[in-house]
């Protein structure tokens, strides 16, 4: 019965609805964008009313919020954290510097294009994005989840070699467990 295509579709819709309204964001401030996260979460903007809530460890989180530029050293940890998260998981690129490097275009220590290394579901542009922009980014993610289009994790799994090659290109000393889920 559960394998039936139509019932699977209904289950998907219900599950996506639940996922949409319960977004647990990993508490990892990778860059200076972390400064606008407290206002987003606290009384004036109150992201919790949309179901957005912090999660302390990657095992419990749904969304990895890349708050700004990633240095090579942080990149390694971010990949590790991302791979520890459980499906379904989403990545939000936050700030101009995740899109094309922003003002760090000539820095030797920051990556410029996040989506070559991790599958990004939603980008929020601006430096700094205002809390309204962050909320709008979450709303955009919710829309994509409800439509079933936020499938970055699947994309990562399918094209793991390509992502790995890119990651290994900038991280010389690669000691990481295999990604097998």
């Amino acid at each position, binding site marked *: 019965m559960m394998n039936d295509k139509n019932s699977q579709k209904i289950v998907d819709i*219900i*599950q996506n609805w*639940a*996922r949409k*309204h*319960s977004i*647990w964001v990993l*508490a990892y401030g990778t860059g200076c964008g972390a400064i606008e996260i407290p206002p987003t979460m*606290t*009384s*004036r903007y*109150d992201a*919790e*009313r949309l*179901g957005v*809530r912090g999660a*302390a*460890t*990657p*095992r*419990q*989180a*749904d969304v990895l919020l890349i708050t700004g530029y990633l240095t090579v050293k942080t990149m390694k940890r971010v990949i590790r954290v991302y791979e520890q*998260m*459980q*499906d*379904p998981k989403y990545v939000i690129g936050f700030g101009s510097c995740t899109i094309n490097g922003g003002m760090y275009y000539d820095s030797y220590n920051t990556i410029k294009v996040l989506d070559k290394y991790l599958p990004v579901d939603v980008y929020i542009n601006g430096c700094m994005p205002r809390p309204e922009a962050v909320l709008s980014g979450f709303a955009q993610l919710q829309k994509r989840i409800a439509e079933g289009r936020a499938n970055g994790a699947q994309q990562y799994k399918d094209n793991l070699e390509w992502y790995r090659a890119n990651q290994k290109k900038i991280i010389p000393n690669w000691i990481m467990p295999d990604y*097998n*889920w």
Partner: protein
Amino acid sequence: MEVVLMDILGAVVTFLVAFVVGMTYGGLSRKITARVQNRKGPPFYQNFIDAFKLGSKKSAIHHGVMHHFGPAFLMVSSVMTLMIVPVLTHNQWFPNLNFQGDLIFLLYVMTFGPLGMALGAGQTGNPNSAIGVTRGLSQMVGFEIPWVLALVALMIQYHTTSITGLMAAQAHSGTWLMFSSPFAFVAAVMAMFGMFRYSPFDIVGAPTELASGPISENGGKYLFVMMSSGSVFTFAKLTLYVDLFMGGADNLLILLIKTFALYLIPVLYGVTTPRYRTEQAVRWFWGWPSFFGLLAILQAVFF
């Protein structure tokens, strides 16, 4: 035969009611916290969505058998507690397995879950979990003393070791135990702070200290089981307090009013307090709460 079937059906109904009520209380506590904090807060049914989402997540991690059993132990402990506690008096839909001495049995069952969880958390190999578990056990040692003292006082005073016996005593005398043995009630309520693990006794999963303690490595379905067992356990504990000290309840509405009033005590206190360190928490439990427990015993013996 029909009686047994009815009992099983009743147990399922009890569990479902406990789950729904516990979850709603969790959601309401989030709402109340949010209102105190000047914000709108999530809808009161947010916990259901969270639980459903956690249940629908994939769980690909595997840390060994005990890690799987940890949440299961918690669930078993919660359900056993729930089964022993009389939910409503004289209602066929809420049967319970009460027997002479169930109060003593209950003390053991309530510690069984955290111990099983400790085994599970130990196997994940996460140091945060290990430290969280030690903290949890220390805190349990702390609040068990006033809690046991309060219960022993009741047992001595009313010469019974069963919950229904105590309820019968209250029905007979017409006064609630919280008025006839106030010291035991105060000690038990103070112990309740530790049981519910709201601030200032949220030292087990303190996020800014230990990520989230024993549940650090548990996401998805594990967390779903733990969340639901927590909700069931919340309901069971609150009902137990209502049974012991507030004369039980005849219908669901009375029960909800009484339990929610009790539930508000740790929630509202927790909103305005930081958390204790482990040794401070244990010291707190061994201070005034234990003193009130001793007073309760003195009252039971001499009056």
